[in-house]
């Protein structure tokens, strides 16, 4: 395997890790505030459909992005209503959102476009295109770095860079700001927040809304950047993989980046069975390669990776006690 092939695999890794990273950070905000969200998948899917549909109709990817975020946000509010205001079961609400999104996207797609539940293929103005970073030519002559810069660092869509920047930003918000302190506190012990005179409900809605926006970005990336248009079930379990990555990351932003890249790497490998064969000298069936990220998910969810302590008030609706 030569250096260029490695870079290509890593490049694919970054592309595939991006939606996971958005969704993982989305889950991080929500779960850090004590609201478990297994509806990441559904929100992502809804956002994917609406961003592609509106981008296709309006011809503007930015309007599409807003529509995607709006759809995801709307589902977030539903989750918030069910689990914060009405103190319902957060898992059930999440499952309901997944089913809702799965069915509604196809139904509306069929009604609007009559293409068997997909949106029309998006033209380049309705997509996020790859952007060439400056200095690619200037660096081209530098050995190693020039290649890394042009193949790996440059040439992604804007959303990839947004996702990567969201990691340090999230870290800063979480651990260096008043909002972050309160957000973490409300996921650990909402009573402490309440007695300090801060609204638990408002904080949790805020967290759920941030989760919605990030899921919207994840979905829009899927349909308008990674691919050109919406197809049925295109999120294909990424919301759940993101949840596994979140647990693997122990609810920490930097760890989240690395665990998403790991999952992205496994997904990237399945695109290059030839490389896997060359490196391992073993013929690994393509299906097994395809299944790798999912197998990893199961292994992680089964708790084989050390002790991960979730936020202590996670999943529990807050009821003021006497």
């Amino acid at each position, binding site marked *: 395997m030569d250096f260029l092939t490695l870079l290509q695999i890593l490049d694919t890794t970054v592309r595939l890790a991006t939606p996971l990273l958005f969704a993982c950070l989305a889950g991080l905000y929500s779960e850090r505030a004590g609201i478990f969200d297994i509806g990441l998948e559904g929100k992502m899917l809804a956002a994917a459909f609406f961003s592609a549909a509106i981008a296709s109709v309006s011809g503007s990817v930015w309007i599409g992005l807003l529509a995607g975020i709006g759809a995801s946000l709307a589902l977030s509010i539903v989750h918030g209503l069910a689990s914060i205001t009405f103190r319902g079961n957060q898992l059930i609400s999440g499952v309901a959102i997944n089913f809702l999104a799965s069915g509604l996207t196809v139904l509306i797609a069929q009604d609007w476009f009559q293409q068997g539940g997909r949106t029309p293929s998006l033209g380049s103005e309705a997509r996020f295109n790859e952007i060439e970073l400056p200095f690619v030519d200037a660096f081209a002559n530098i050995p190693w770095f020039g290649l890394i810069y042009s193949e790996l660092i440059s040439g992604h869509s804007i959303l990839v860079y947004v996702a990567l920047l969201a990691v340090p930003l999230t870290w800063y918000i979480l*651990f*260096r*700001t*008043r*909002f*972050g*302190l*309160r957000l*973490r*506190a409300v996921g*650990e*012990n909402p*009573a*402490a*927040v*309440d*007695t*300090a*005179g*801060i609204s638990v409900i408002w904080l949790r809605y805020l967290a759920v809304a941030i989760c919605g926006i990030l899921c919207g970005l994840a979905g829009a990336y899927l349909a308008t950047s990674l691919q050109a248009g919406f197809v049925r079930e295109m999120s294909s379990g990424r919301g759940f993989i993101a949840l596994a990555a979140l647990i693997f990351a122990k609810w920490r932003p930097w760890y989240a980046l690395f665990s998403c890249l790991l999952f992205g790497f496994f997904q990237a490998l399945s695109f290059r069975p030839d490389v896997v064969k060359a490196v391992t000298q073993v013929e690994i069936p393509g299906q097994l390669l395809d299944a790798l990220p999912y197998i990893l998910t199961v292994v992680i969810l089964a708790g084989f990776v050390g002790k991960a302590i979730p936020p*202590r008030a996670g999943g529990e609706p807050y009821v*003021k006690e*006497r």
Partner: protein
Amino acid sequence: MSDGNEQGGRPDTVAPAIELRGISKAFGPVQANKDIAIRVMPGTIHGIIGENGAGKSTLMSILYGFYKADRGEIFISGKKTEIPDSQAAIAAGIGMVFQHFKLVENFSVLENVVLGAEDGARLKPSLAKARLLLTDLAKEYELNVKPDALIEDLSVGYQQRVEILKALYRKADILILDEPTGVLTPSEADHLFRILKGLRDEGKTIILITHKLREIMDVTDTVSVMRRGEMTATVKTAETSPEELAELMVGRKVLLRVDKKPATPYASVLEVENLRVVDENGVERLKGIDLQVRGGEILGIAGVAGNGQSELLHVLGGYMNGTGNIRVNGNEIDLTGKHSDGQSRRERGIAHVPEDRHREGLILDFFAWENMIFGYHQAPEYQKSRWFMDNNAIKQATAEKMERFDVRPPITGLTAKNFSGGNQQKIVLAREIERDPELLLVGQPTRGVDIGAIEFIHQQIVALRDKGKAILLVSVELDEIMSLADRIAVMFDGQIMGERLPSETDERELGMLMAGITDTGRADTASSTGAQRVDNPGIGV
């Protein structure tokens, strides 16, 4: 040093720090507070005493903005104040230390202190400011806590200090403490009272809610008594007595001392030799316990919580493995293997009232009649046939037991969590005592139980003793051990430090043994070091 500062010396023109007028609050049909009026003068410690459910906590929740009163007015320093939420209470200078701490366990002390009272969107300046203030407060009031320690690494005594620091950081002038000593060791409680007196001398007003008469007598300047939602009396502490307060609380005369005849012990029932227990982390919890309990006597195990008493009960009760020898009526008891479990212990005549009734004694979501048979559910009288239980017989038996043990309300179909603490304990006690055991293990029989029920529970334990049964009593309440036990063994660090007769010892001597000091010859010099040893679990500035 501080007792001279009473409100008697103050001019009458000073407005009360808190004045409540005609406060009423109902939850559905239950009138939790009825026309409450109270005046608390600034710079005093004011006790509010009453049984569980008397309405103390509701009243304080109203003052802290958790509930809105149906009627009534609140005056803070003479000014009428509305307190719709906690924010308003904090703004009015009220700080509250709840019985169950409102701390974020995996946050540092600093982060907990600052939470909700940050100065700006960025944390750093607030944390730096809090760090300075904490150092000042630590010097001023003996409130040392390491600012960067995580809450979960602190002992409860230190966690409580963090709660007090939180209130002081928010510039509270009025500090409300709800049952603050429930979780503290005697020396931690003494330390708390020193802190409170220091705060009082600085002009802070302190409201202490408790059901422990001794604390009221020790630390307060004035005391109000609540019963069934009403304020029945407010008196100066110096002019009242524990007996009078108890009567005001319960509404009838209460025996504060247990009424019992001298023990007439028979033959030895329980013999423990060289009992050792190593926990899952490899720490030796019991380091060779030798003890003996005879029929017709109560052996009280005194000690600060966490010195092996729980492990002793667990091994004897059959749900922890150990090594050594245990004999009941001369029969060897297995300490490991398949004959070492709760059921085989019960078959040998050992009954157990566990320390933690919520986790070990009851299933809170189950009905009273189901709870009444746990552990004895295989008894033949509860079986209808080989496969089916006789629920009617069980309910019938439960109703009888509930009547004999005065469980209120006597409803067999009520879930355990809907009974008060005292009545839950009576259910456990009824289940265990009514099987007529040879040996009764009792852990913390009156923890979280109100005075009226304490009296009853103590009577039942003494009655079992008088039937010639052996009783092993574990309690962290020294008062309880002193009044109930016929013999006292003191545990420290997994060992028995010594045995005393209640008539021949006092709290000071036992307190030293509890701190691991056996040299009784130098009682005066040893007592101060003893207090420090317990007081200093290794965390401080």
